[in-house]
């Protein structure tokens, strides 16, 4: 099972994402922002960092990079896509996920381990969890405040597309304490916290994050 991990100029967490894919049992495939080639992957991870220095808006320029044409087309065909942190911002800017990520309320960069509740196990990336399960993963972002208009928030809640929620009050002021959302078909998921940093208790606060990567392998295998 080939899982692509995209590197943009300024991406930081592609190495950890590749490691997470490998430890989950998948074959990681490095993808480059300037290419129009997904190299035959079965799923995609858009990792965190500060693509293009976060110039203009976080994720705004990366969302218009050449490879994103292929990512959008693949997502339209139903390929699972996971956006983590800056990757979540990129998927929102690219129109694959609703809403936007703005400067944290309080203006502080937040870097800490925290508890998330998995609100939906019905996505390509959360099938290894039970709805309501709590996991511990790190959050490290300055522009992680999830916002969307009132109608979109109602729709996300009604359709079960809020995938992750901060258990304690959102440290960045996210509306509805939302930490992650999914596309209507549950194949595209974005979240601000970093599951790829929590795949081994030796190097992270837990191994809870590995569940996203094992889940997508199972989802692709059963497709």
């Amino acid at each position, binding site marked *: 099972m080939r899982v692509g991990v995209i590197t943009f100029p300024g991406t930081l967490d592609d190495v950890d994402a590749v490691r997470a894919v490998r430890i989950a049992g998948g074959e990681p495939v490095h993808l480059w922002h300037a290419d129009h080639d997904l190299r035959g992957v079965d799923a995609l991870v858009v990792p965190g960092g500060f693509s293009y220095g976060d110039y*203009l*808006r976080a994720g*705004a320029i990366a969302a*218009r990079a050449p490879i994103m044409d292929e990512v959008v087309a693949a997502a339209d065909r139903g390929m699972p896509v996971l956006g983590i942190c800056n990757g979540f911002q990129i998927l*929102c*800017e690219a129109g694959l996920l*609703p*809403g*936007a990520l*703005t*400067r*944290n*309320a*309080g*203006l502080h960069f937040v870097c800490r381990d925290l508890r998330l509740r998995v609100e939906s196990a019905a996505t390509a990336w959360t099938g290894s969890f039970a709805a309501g399960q709590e996991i511990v993963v790190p959050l490290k972002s300055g522009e992680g*405040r999830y*916002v*969307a*208009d009132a109608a979109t928030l109602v729709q996300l809640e009604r359709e079960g597309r809020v995938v992750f929620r901060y258990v304690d009050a959102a440290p960045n*002021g996210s509306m509805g304490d939302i930490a992650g959302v999914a596309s209507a078909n549950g194949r595209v998921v974005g979240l601000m916290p970093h599951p790829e940093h929590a795949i081994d208790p030796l190097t992270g606060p837990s191994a809870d994050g590995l569940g996203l990567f094992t889940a997508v392998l199972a989802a692709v295998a059963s497709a």
Partner: protein
Amino acid sequence: MPKPEILDPQGQAVAGALHRLGVAGVTEVRQGKHFELEVDDAVDDDTLHRIAGSLLANPVIEDWRVTRA
């Protein structure tokens, strides 16, 4: 500019600084962005609006307008 309903913590920080400097009467500050583009005469308003709405601004969280100098 951030839409009215979008929290603008940067603007709030500026408002707080003005208050500390003793400036009276400033009730709110909203912080936005301003772009100046040098364009050929052939670039029409439709193109400028497309640039503004598709790249320079994020219509999910920002209002924008285009003016010619």
